């Protein structure tokens, strides 16, 4: 049993320190068991009261609060019905009195038997204003305890401990919920900040030496906004598709929705083409995507072969022909990806060779023409980046279209939902990661 003093300012004095049973009722009723049990209720007024006391509790809690606001003044503390010596932890909220209370616990329970004694004392002390709780010096006069009472004491003590534990648990839960709410708010704020910053083309991660280059060009900014709009529309279309699938609409209706999603996919590839023309590096950097998406990105977008792997088990049942078609599609998209990846590697290797060429160094000859020449070559190589991005997007688009061709309308609908869910979760993972508590 912990002393109330251990608590942070108890928020609800009226709830917690209801001394009504003692004060009002306890006084009237048999001043024995009932009262003593009520003492146990000091901490948890709402719990475990004897029924007759419970009623009073609710009625008089406010009254008690008023009474105990200035704890000590008019408590007729003897009316607390405390066996003296049972250090009752009362009104921790009245700061001045905190120190006066002993731990209510064993000693309190142990004094159960004293009730009859104290009740008499109470009667006589009725007119005393200053005893008991205030001074925390309730002393039990005699200590005779029968075995029967011992049993009761233990039971009462257990009850009291339970109540204490329950209360603590409630407090913990409250604190936890508050923390969750706070984290949620923080998460939303972070998401908004991220979105805003991305739209301004500012690099979120790290500080690069070329800060000036990191501020988005118009192309990057325009693309980011286009993409955000596209994503919103995409979610809307997907939701409509999901509703349709779940409500088992007819194939014709479903086909319209599926075709809608597919042509909307065409739209993003068109937008990426425009964006690549104005800022290919922005597209390739993936700064317009969330961090997790960016991490697993391939050549400026998703990996077609990866998507097909995700769909592998979700498309059953498939006819043999469909199965073969999907397998072939997975294989050919994988091969195409590998080919483009190797092309990119060759590009990088070529750039390395060009930029590390001897004539570029500040040698004695200082051949500017050579330098300019090599730079021109390097520029030419960079220009092929746009072509690679274009081919990669074409690959993605064609993989989706071929998948659409192989599958039935219903299967295609499910496939689109699965793909969209995967992307959404990947994005959510980003948000969670960004909002995680760091130690």
């Amino acid at each position, binding site marked *: 049993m912990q002393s109330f003093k251990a608590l942070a300012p108890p928020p609800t004095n009226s709830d917690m320190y209801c001394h009504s049973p003692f004060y009002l009722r306890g006084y009237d009723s048999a001043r024995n068991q009932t009262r003593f049990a009520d003492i146990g209720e000091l901490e948890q007024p709402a719990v475990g009261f004897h029924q007759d006391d419970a009623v009073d509790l609710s009625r008089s809690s406010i009254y008690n609060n008023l009474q105990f606001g200035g704890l000590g003044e008019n408590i007729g503390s003897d009316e607390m019905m405390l066996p003296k010596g049972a250090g009752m932890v009362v009104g921790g909220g009245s700061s001045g009195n905190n120190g006066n209370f002993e731990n209510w616990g064993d000693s309190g329970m142990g004094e159960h038997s004293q009730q009859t004694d104290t009740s008499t004392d109470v009667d006589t002390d009725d007119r005393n204003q200053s005893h008991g709780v205030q001074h925390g010096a309730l002393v039990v006069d005699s200590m005779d305890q029968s075995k029967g009472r011992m049993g009761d004491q233990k039971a009462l003590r257990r009850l009291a401990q339970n109540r204490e534990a329950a209360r603590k648990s409630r407090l913990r839960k409250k604190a936890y919920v508050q923390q969750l709410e706070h984290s949620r708010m923080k998460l939303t704020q972070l998401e908004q900040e991220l979105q805003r910053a991305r739209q301004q083309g500012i690099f979120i991660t790290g500080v690069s030496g070329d800060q000036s280059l990191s501020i988005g060009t118009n192309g990057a900014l325009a693309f980011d906004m286009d993409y955000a709009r596209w994503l919103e529309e995409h979610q809307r279309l997907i939701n409509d598709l999901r509703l349709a699938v779940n409500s088992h609409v007819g194939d014709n209706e479903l086909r319209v929705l599926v075709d809608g999603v597919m042509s909307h996919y065409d739209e993003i590839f068109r937008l990426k083409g425009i964006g690549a023309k104005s800022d290919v590096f922005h597209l390739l950097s993936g700064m317009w995507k969330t961090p997790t998406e960016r991490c697993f990105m391939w050549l400026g977008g998703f990996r077609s072969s990866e998507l097909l792997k995700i769909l592998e088990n979700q498309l059953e049942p498939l006819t043999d022909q469909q199965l073969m078609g999907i397998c072939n599609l997975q294989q050919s998209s994988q091969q195409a990806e590998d080919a483009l990846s*190797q*092309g990119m590697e060759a590009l990088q290797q070529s750039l390395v060779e060009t930029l590390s060429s001897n004539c570029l160094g500040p040698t004695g000859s200082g051949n500017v023409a050579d330098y300019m020449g090599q730079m021109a070559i390097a520029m030419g190589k960079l220009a092929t980046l746009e072509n690679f991005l274009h*081919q990669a997007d074409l690959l993605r688009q064609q993989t989706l279209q*071929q998948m659409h061709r192989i599958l039935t309308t219903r299967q295609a609908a499910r496939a689109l939902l699965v793909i969209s869910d995967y992307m959404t979760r990947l994005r959510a993972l980003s948000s969670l990661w960004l909002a995680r508590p760091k130690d």
Partner: protein
Amino acid sequence: MYYQTEPWAGSYNLPTMTNMGDPLQRIERMASGNAVVIFSVSTCCMCHAIKRLFCGMGVNPTVYELDEDSHGNDLEKALMSLLGASSAVPVVFIGGKLVGAMDRVMASHINGSLVPLLKEAGALWL
């Protein structure tokens, strides 16, 4: 002098050219010489990618590097007009027939029409 169109180009309408019969004829000759023919430039990375694509499928293409050819420039120009594109390379011919540049090749691979074409030309066996 008008270029005599050969049927090998299939559905392609060859542009009329004056005094340029040679390059296109040469191209046609080179293209029909092997099952899979790629016109490339040694420094072109997209050409490298397309070569890797065929090698990855187990095909052994015949590659002509235009920058290593004496008449490379003419051939390049001819290919550009053939494709109607700003870039001459890479260009792929299968079984003497023009397939196209990287995008066409990849599209036909994805939609499953490339492999049958290769098998038909004898470049791929089961």
